[in-house]
């Protein structure tokens, strides 16, 4: 196995251009090392952790900018994230175990593109964007276009994720991430539901709502029909139930060793109801009627 520790982004991109499919990028390593041990050593391993200045959480121009090598724990313990981006905070807080959070990176979680990747549905509902470096130059891609299939993203074999850009949501917005799993620690999500809700100025209607679903489709998805059913309306129990049903219908789960597709749909429904109700309560101070 060839091994490289590029010191700059362009060095890394050149390596990818040269080795293409044979190259595997490693960030934290929590996924890649397991692959190496239990599946196969890649012909070429590119360790990007020596590239300086890829680990940061900053704000500028109305956006939060996160470097791809920022660890999940760094995101979890960041006050700005906790206060302004609770849906991202919630996902990082429920991510694997503390030991893993200290090693795994947001870039790694994104580029792994696992259908159940913890941070992915939150990035969708936050309408975050990926800044990526390709041989032909830099590009900004919304995360709604970033994921193509399990393990496949627009990066292909030659792209490198450079930065995650998350626009600051309006002050009055609230959000949360609900993870369904068996134990409540160290789990892979059976279902993940990310909800982001913006009330109107009178806090009587849902001005905007975004519902992201993880682990129930080949990629993370937005439950757009459920969102449409809620947008512009005052929330009541009937709508909560309807949103749950819609979201469940929009999900495309499979049956695997963790859960059946049928069960996953029940959970999408339950967690969407819960997520929407709780986000509404957080945003308006009121329970759903």
């Amino acid at each position, binding site marked *: 196995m060839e091994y490289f520790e590029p010191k700059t982004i362009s060095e890394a991109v050149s390596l990818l251009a040269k080795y293409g499919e044979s190259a595997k990028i490693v960030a934290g390593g929590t996924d890649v090392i397991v692959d190496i041990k239990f599946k196969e050593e890649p012909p070429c391993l590119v360790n990007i952790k020596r590239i300086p200045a890829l680990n940061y959480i900053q704000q500028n121009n109305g956006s939060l900018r996160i470097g791809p090598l920022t660890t999940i724990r760094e995101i979890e313990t960041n006050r700005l994230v906790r206060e302004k981006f609770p849906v991202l905070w919630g996902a990082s807080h429920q991510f694997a175990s503390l*030991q893993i959070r200290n090693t795994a990176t947001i870039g790694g979680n994104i580029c792994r593109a696992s259908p159940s990747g913890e941070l992915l549905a939150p990035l969708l509902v936050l309408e975050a964007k990926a800044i990526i470096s390709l041989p032909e130059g830099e590009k900004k891609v919304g995360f709604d276009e970033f994921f193509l299939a399990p393990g496949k993203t627009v990066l292909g074999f030659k792209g490198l994720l450079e930065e995650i850009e998350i626009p600051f949501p309006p002050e009055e917005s609230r959000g949360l991430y609900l993870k369904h799993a068996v134990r409540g620690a*160290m789990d892979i999500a059976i279902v993940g539901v990310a909800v982001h809700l913006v009330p109107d100025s009178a806090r009587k209607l849902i001005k905007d709502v975004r519902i992201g679903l993880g682990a129930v489709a080949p990629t993370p998805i937005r439950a757009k029909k459920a969102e449409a059913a809620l947008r512009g309306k005052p929330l009541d129990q009937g709508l909560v139930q309807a949103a749950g049903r819609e979201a469940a219908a929009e999900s495309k789960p499979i049956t695997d060793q963790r859960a059946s597709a049928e069960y996953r749909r029940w959970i999408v429904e339950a967690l969407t109801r819960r997520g929407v109700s709780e986000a509404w309560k957080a945003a308006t101070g009121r329970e759903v009627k």
Partner: protein
Amino acid sequence: MSLEISLTVNGKQHRASIDPSSSLLDFLRDTLGYKGVKICCNTGECGACTILFNGKPVNSCVVLAADAADAQIVTVEGLAEGDKLHPVQQAFIDTGAVQCGYCTPGFIMSVKALLDRSKNPTPEEIEEAVSGNICRCTGYAKIVEAIEIAAQRMAERS
């Protein structure tokens, strides 16, 4: 191909060759001889291999050995001062939290990291600190006691 790295383990400087595909766990155990870092699942799912990496608890089985270059590593072997056990180690013995002892080093490192961050940990903080460590022998009851007692004793000392 091989790579040479320098790192500090338990305050001691090391310089050694590594295979870039190897994990920090394999390197610490097999190359440097730190048997206190235990192998179990090898997938980051049990915490038996927990060590402190620049002060943070990590599963060494899913950290690249190469990434330990210039790092400060602490394993359980680095806690006692001569014959004097670290309060966390002593607490585990005193409460009966050691049965087979295989998960013990990993737990002790997670607990040490916890008490380094938080002198008076809440039940939630304790849960967060060790929910990534599996014990198959104790049912966790006496481990929780050990953590509480260690925290108490360390607070009294300082």
